[in-house]
């Protein structure tokens, strides 16, 4: 199934990727091939088969005791941040 240019643009927007208009045809081509390829799954008869979300069946989520174990280290953590002020991460103005 060939993906349309609009579909590729919509997927890119959902994923917050900016595609150069010139590279869209290439993405369109390769993604279409991938979609065709994964379409082979249609061949499988999966009636009555439960989806498997996790490779180790029968394991349940472990629960952690409710204890504060983390100390304030924001000056260290913010060393990787592109833009901070007064302890806040900064982004262009968000309009609501």
């Amino acid at each position, binding site marked *: 199934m060939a993906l349309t240019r609009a579909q590729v643009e919509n997927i890119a927007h*959902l994923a*917050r990727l900016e595609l150069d208009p010139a590279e869209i045809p290439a993405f369109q081509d390769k993604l279409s091939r991938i979609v065709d390829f994964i379409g082979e799954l249609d061949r499988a008869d999966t009636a009555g088969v439960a989806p498997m*979300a*996790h490779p180790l069946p029968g*394991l*349940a*989520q*472990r*629960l*952690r*005791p*409710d*204890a*504060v*174990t*983390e100390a*304030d*280290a*924001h000056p260290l*953590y*913010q060393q990787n941040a592109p833009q901070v*002020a*007064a*302890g*806040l*991460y*900064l*982004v*262009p*103005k*968000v*309009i*609501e």
Partner: protein
Amino acid sequence: MTESSGTILDAAQQRPRRGESQDGTSTGWETVIGLEIHAQLATRSKIFSGASTAYGAAPNSQACLVDLGYPGVLPVLNAEAVRMAVRFGLAIGARIARQSVFARKNYFYPDLPKGYQISQYELPIVAQGAIDIVLEDGSIKRIGVTRAHLEEDAGKSLHEGLPGLTGIDLNRAGTPLIEIVSEPELRSARDAVAYMKKVHTLVRYLEICDGNMQEGSFRCDANVSVRRQGSEKLGTRAEIKNVNSFRYVEKAIQYEVARQIDILESGGKVVQETRLYDPDKGETRSMRSKEEANDYRYFPDPDLLPVELDEQYIEAVRAALPELPDAKAARFVAQYGLPAYDAGVLTASRELADYYEAVARAVPGEPKLAANWVMGDLAAALNKEGLDIDAGRMPAGRLAGLLARIADQTISGKIAKEVFEAMWSSGESADSIIDTKGLRQITDTSAIEQAIEAVMARNPAQLAEYRSGKDKLFGFFVGQVMKATQGKANPAQLNELLKKKLPG
């Protein structure tokens, strides 16, 4: 600019709105409301990390690597968050899922560090409960709770003081929430508020949420639509986001109902959208930033395994449940003989109910007197100063001390009000105020008789009129004797003695 928009707004507000009535019935419209309440769970640490959930810390000082969504970190579920959600589920008679699953809700927003929120989607921990609310006419309506699921809270965006920029504080990110989703069974803004208050009462009884609405610990989204009376089909709904007070919920829904009816009656169509309530303007407005079609791409979070709860766990949580408001109110009616209304008011919070019971127990045989005082003078005094019942300003024992003096007739109800005021301002006990002010009631028959005789002697004309049939003057004599005894004569005795003496 500001002036002209203000004028338009004023004009709009003055214009009588169609469908102003609560339920719309008078106009042929029916309102349909469903609420999604977000209650922050009162855990010490976050739902998936060991960072503190305390409110009001310096920006990002409580955002650890997991909360920040750092590369490589992983979530581990807080046992207490699970227990609290189960407590809530059991309290509303819901089904507790033996297996529930965390899913990722994917969207980009700066206060959402990972680019997805860990929530529950197809298999929530709590499903199909119900909450009873009391309607205005005193009747009870059962509101279905579709589900309550665990999820993580987002951080906060700060728009002030940073020109052209938004600051992100992720201290709140990862705070555990339960989102409580009602069926669309609420039919008016008042229904909605009654329901929200009931949930608020419940979560505080259960000690799973501090209920602090100012700090955002308890907030709600309202899905509002209207339809023609008798129509089966639901109208298009608008979702009003993040309302954090009971009053605003009522006002926001009223505004929204009126807005939708206006649109429909003038031939328009309601747009399905997210709206924000502006308390300053008293209106809802479209949130353009969230307008674009959302495609959250939910899927099970592969970093977390299914949460499995067995019967033994659930029964242990059930056994630890406190007495809940409805049960407590019923007990107050049965045990203390209170009217249902009083029982409802007194059980609105666990603190108030505990206070009432402490007072009632300390003054045996006078539960209604205790109720009247707690709901009357005490509530008024607390309200006036904006204090909570558990602020300690009037300990239960002290109020009981006053009520005991009313009960044993040391003072009259009227004097008691004076004593209460003195107690409130001085913090002293009722007895010490009664003694120092000499307010002890006169119950000595001969003393009252002496006072009556003196009043009769001073007012021969009135006495003659009374005796010639002007019964209304009885009250005059009561007043005169009370005045002479500085209000301390026992009212019942006084009545009786006057009835004997006045006829001559």
